[in-house]
């Protein structure tokens, strides 16, 4: 299935969980947030939240700013 992650189209295993997506991307869950289709998914749900074809995922963190 195809999922848009941070503006990049990725081909992923069907029904991959957010937890496994982050492992695949080598992203730590510390100080970050995820939106799927503009809805925030709490960290407690990463283990069981399964993505579906066409989902738009944003992986977000804090960067330098004023």
């Amino acid at each position, binding site marked *: 299935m195809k999922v848009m992650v941070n503006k990049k189209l990725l081909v992923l295993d069907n029904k991959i969980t957010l937890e496994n997506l982050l492992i695949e991307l080598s*992203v730590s869950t510390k100080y970050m947030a995820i939106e799927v289709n503009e809805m925030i998914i709490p960290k407690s749900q990463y283990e069981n939240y399964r993505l579906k074809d066409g989902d738009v995922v944003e992986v977000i963190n*804090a*960067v330098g*700013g*004023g």
Partner: protein
Amino acid sequence: MNNFIIKNKTYGSRLIVGTGKYKDLSETKLAIEASGAEMVTVAIRRMNIGQDKNTPNLLEFIDPEKYTILPNTAGCYTAEDAIRTCNIAAEILDGKKLVKLEVLGDEKTLYPNIIETMRAAEILVQDDFDVMVYTTDDPLIAKELENIGCVSVMPLASPIGSGLGLQNKYNILSIVENANIPIIVDAGIGTASDASIIMELGCDGILMNTAIACAKNPVLMASAMKKAVEAGYEAYHAGRIPKKRYASASSPIEDNICNDE
């Protein structure tokens, strides 16, 4: 003299610093340490997933256990975008709901869109966010934002990143005189004297980024700003002398052996 308190937490430093525009994270950290700031602003952005795995996350460098992290809504032009960003920030920071609300209206001036700012502030306050709000130097708007329930009002000295210093002293003075919450001047500082002049008006604090990060020597400027904010604050409470047109001798007039008439 009084304590600098934001949402029940007392801060030893009245200087809040941004983390943008630095050469690297190491310089960011050194400048923050030199500034003495205990609260630092960050922006909320899409993670650069393809980046070098050895590049640390900003918040692994600027420890949220040590500093109060103030996420901003920079780059948002509508209330909806700002609220979305605040909710993401709360998720990033494990539920902490202190935010710097800025809703911009124009790319050239980066002036705040006050209508959208007020709309966002109302919703965020209802959603239990502690809102520190960036605004213009309009005293009536500042009071409205206080009445909405913002924990601090942060009027600009001059446009963001301009370095023009304080442009409207009497408006800032009116805002300070009418306020029952901390007034923190945010944006427009150029150099140390700008910070002192603002604090001498009785402001509670200053938020700055570019003046430090883009100085030739950011760490040294951070140290200068720390002293300037402290000096201005102490001078305000010490009470300045009235201005006079002519001289007033500092040494005694009497018993001058060279002028014994």
